[in-house]
């Protein structure tokens, strides 16, 4: 069953006007941007995930907060007219008898039950929108899903931190965990992928043509096995189709029509490859599940560089879909640093100090979620939540900046389907239903499709929320079984 779309064709094809600015020769410049020619903004879907959850009682406090010193939604104050905060989004259909670090994380943006800890139960909403919005595929060379983040808990489940998923629940893209690697993924500079040979070098040009012939042959092989003659079942064909998408992306990068600058969005400044901060990545990021020591400066510095690349990728129209992660599900860090917001101290983080008598995993901030007390102050948890919201808001602000204003006068944030979600509505593991109930979501306006400036109690399942949003974009194919309620409260 294919996705169908009811989208204005102008979204892809029509429009005029573009701004050309001088840039260094990066791959980004060789992508023929249809965005630059569009009168209407392109369809975009971006998932922003934060780990550990947002307890329902704290959600209920809204922007006002329970006390004066930590209002956890405060960082969204400048954006609240452009967002809807959705309470009562339940992921209980995704209950897998694990805890929310696994099944709640897998349900974020998919609404479905994971079959295992590395696979979600279905496609993520950003990718469903991509398939529905671009049934013939994205413009050549565009990345199907940008994915990057600041996350450290990863060794036992990819569902913790991968939030752009294919139909079969496999990752579309493995998130990049360093700003430099993320930049390279988005803008190129990978070995063997830089530039076409100069016309004056016929031998190199010949090699490039032969290289293309090889890839054409490989493509033909994939097409064969994706056809009926290939004798493969649907899941296998889907896996090969995913592979073929990557080959096409590779081809587009290698064999762009010309090597010179092409029109690109005005919002795309000169990309500059970031320098990685000294934050653990790869396997070093998760030392046996024991958590890492990290300073506030390093944590925020790392994330904001990731966020910069993420926003730049969207502004430069290298990607229209994808996901970003600020702390994975069940994140384990021992944070230290003086956290200030708007010129005032929110909290002096020192998890080691605040968790006396503990060490290793149990000394991590993670534990504040497990020990959440309805009637308690939950001081450290609130402080961490404030920090998390601040960082998610930081990325949103980049998409809402003056250089993100599009031709319709709205910002990328306003024009796109941006969804924020997390793993649980209560971090205590002793009640899986409670954990998966009331999982905080935030959504942007989707270019006038969704209400903003409100807190809405939707009291419905996540899968229905996602399907409602897809339907608002005219995507005929829905996630899951396609059934369920339409959540009218969110629609304009």
């Amino acid at each position: 069953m294919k996705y169908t779309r009811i989208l204005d064709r102008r979204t892809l094809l029509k429009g005029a006007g573009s701004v050309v600015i001088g840039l260094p020769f990066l791959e980004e410049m060789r992508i023929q941007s249809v965005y630059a020619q569009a009168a209407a903004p392109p369809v975009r879907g971006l998932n922003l995930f934060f780990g550990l959850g947002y307890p329902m009682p704290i959600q209920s406090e809204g922007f006002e907060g329970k006390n004066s010193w930590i209002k956890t939604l405060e960082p969204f104050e400048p954006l609240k007219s452009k967002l809807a905060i959705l309470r009562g989004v339940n992921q209980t259909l995704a209950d897998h008898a694990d805890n929310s670090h696994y099944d709640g994380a897998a349900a974020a943006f998919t609404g479905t039950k994971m079959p295992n800890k590395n696979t979600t139960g279905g496609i993520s909403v950003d990718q469903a929108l991509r398939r529905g919005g671009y049934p013939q595929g994205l413009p050549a060379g565009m990345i199907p899903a940008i994915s990057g983040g600041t996350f450290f808990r990863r060794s036992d489940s990819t569902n913790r931190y991968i939030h752009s998923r294919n139909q079969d629940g496999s990752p579309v893209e493995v998130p990049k965990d360093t700003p430099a690697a993320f930049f390279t993924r988005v803008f190129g500079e990978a070995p063997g992928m830089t530039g076409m040979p100069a016309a004056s070098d016929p031998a190199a040009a010949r090699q490039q043509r032969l290289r293309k012939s090889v890839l054409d042959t490989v493509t033909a092989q994939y097409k064969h096995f994706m056809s009926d003659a290939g004798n493969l079942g649907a899941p296998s064909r889907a896996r090969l189709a995913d592979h073929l998408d990557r080959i096409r992306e590779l081809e587009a990068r290698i064999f762009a029509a010309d090597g010179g600058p092409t029109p690109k969005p005005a919002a795309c400044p000169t990309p500059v490859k970031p320098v990685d901060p000294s934050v653990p990545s790869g396997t070093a990021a998760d030392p046996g599940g024991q958590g890492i020591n990290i300073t506030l400066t390093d944590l925020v510095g790392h994330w904001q560089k990731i966020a910069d690349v993420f926003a730049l990728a969207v502004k430069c129209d290298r990607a229209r879909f994808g996901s970003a992660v600020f702390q994975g599900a069940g994140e384990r860090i021992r944070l230290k640093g003086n956290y200030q917001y708007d010129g005032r101290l929110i909290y002096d983080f020192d998890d080691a100090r605040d968790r006396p008598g503990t060490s290793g995993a149990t000394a991590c901030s993670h534990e504040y979620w497990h020990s959440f007390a309805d009637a308690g102050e939950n001081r450290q948890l609130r402080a961490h939540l404030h920090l998390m919201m601040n960082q998610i808001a930081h990325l949103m602000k980049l998409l809402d900046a003056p250089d993100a204003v599009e031709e319709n006068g709205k910002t990328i944030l306003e024009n796109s389907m941006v969804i924020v979600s997390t793993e649980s509505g209560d971090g205590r593991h002793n009640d899986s239903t409670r954990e998966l109930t009331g999982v905080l979501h935030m959504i942007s306006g989707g270019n006038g499709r969704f209400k903003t400036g409100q807190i809405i109690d939707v009291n419905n399942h996540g899968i229905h929320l996602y399907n409602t949003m897809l339907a608002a974009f005219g995507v005929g194919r829905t996630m899951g079984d396609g059934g369920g309620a339409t959540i009218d409260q969110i629609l304009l």
Partner: protein
Amino acid sequence: MRNRPSLRSSAPLGQLLVATMAFAAGCTGSVSSEEGGAAAGAAGSGTGGQVSAGAGVGNAGVSAGGTSSPAGGGAAGSTAANPPAVPRAHPGEEFACDPGSATPGPSLVRRLTATEYINSVEHALSIKIQPLATTELPAEVASSGFDNDANALVVSYERVAAYERLATLIAGQLGDPAAFVARFSDCSTMTEACQTKLIDSLGRKLLRGAVQPAERTAFLALYQAAQAEAASYVEASTLVLRAMLQSPRFIYRIEKERGDGSVQAVSATELASRISYALWQAPPDDALVAAADTGKLEQETGVAAEVQRMLQDPRAYVTASTFFSDWLDLRRLDTLQRSADAFPGFDNALHADMKQETTALFEAVWKSKARLTSLYDLESTTVSQALAKHYGLPSPREGVATYDLTAVPTRGGLLTHGSILAIGGEQASSVMRGLFFIENVLCSEIVAPPASADTTPPPLGAGVSRRTVSAARVANPACGGCHSQMEQPVWGLIRYSATGVYSEKDEFGNELPADGEIRFPGQQAPAPYADVAELSRVLAQSERARDCLTLKIAQYALGRSPAGSESCALDAARQVIASSPGTYGDMIGALSQTDLFRRLKTQTN
């Protein structure tokens, strides 16, 4: 809400798949933040829980299906491109072996792991591509346990780009290209006959089977394109090689999946590939190909003979030791760091020595052709001098040495290794160690507590031992139903710290009793033990521990968790293994004779 029926007293291996812990006691677990499955808990009231089940979820997290029901909301995603979840873990008699409902698990093309890719290239082309390939290929996505699960072996842009680069680099490493081409084709003219000869010959080797007409047509077209660029036959042939190295038939293990929905035998060529990658992480060698081509693999004796032959090859040990390492997730030791505050003077470099010790244990069991469960009570260990000192072994010797432990009752067997004792965090949590034990030694599972559970820890005073804390959970009527299953089996380890240091008293001077009991699934009476030595002996003789290892090997060999519908095949293997010495070879040999290897369910879509 998650109460599940218990199993009969002698649970067959197939039922390891289909049941889980049945809790009867209302359990208000106090498990803090423990992960890896769910925290303990249960609803109802009664006489205490039973360990019953087993599921492939624990280690690799790669089970094929849902738990107690088809994947509810997840099943909603069952579409042409999203296979329906396979019922896996519903407990009870109804899932005992029923030949009428036995069906092979789901089929999915499986991408070669980096190791398999390297082995496949080196075997087919007789060249070495290390360390080049290791440098070029992105690391697999890290997840605990086995890294060869088909579901997790997705492809990234970087990997596709690496395949393309590697293909070019490999073609450039052939030495004399003409000599290379001559190995596969005895002619060298740019004729279709010559081209076809090379395509079929090289393809047979590299693509692990006969080249299909559609594939041949595409490769012939590449010759034409090369000819248009004035390429020679040899140069064009290297382009074909580059294309083959990126083709789906090479990158993926592909079988004929389409059909009328019936269960069918896999082809001899496909079976050879299944056996070869399970035993060697490599493609079939010439002898196995010959066995497939001559019909020998259609006979059980033929398969048995090939498996026995292949087990003698060093690649079998490499693969088996990889299984062993993955089963215990020894990679976690590569990055594990203990805090200096909690463990002053502890050298984190010892974690590498601990990993080496455990690897050496498996090597000793392998070389002696001992039953696999003897790894639990082997009375010797091979450790570095530093680790020997850390353990307090008598007379530490220079370098890595093997120590006889017959006179050292506190050491000996897997459970006394620092690599295993590191599980449980810096507090050496009995809950976390117990979860590991339940999932990886017994192949059982702890389900989440009910909504009514109160996880408030029992109040305890300062200076209380961790044994007392654990015992309080076990004794608590609200907690004990679950925690007795989890924690009592690992009380034998309570004298060991997170770094594996043995002490009969804790830092407060409290005695640490090391006796406990194991409730094996399906057995009414618990198996008591007095200390870690007896615990190790009990496990070494345990059918359950043996069956669990068989299940884990099956999971690794198949590259997926066996489905619930494959219980009969697992039971068939179990019966064979029960009457054998129980070596790793016996287990993989028995599994290779079953429908797990020999059959697949065709798909109509």
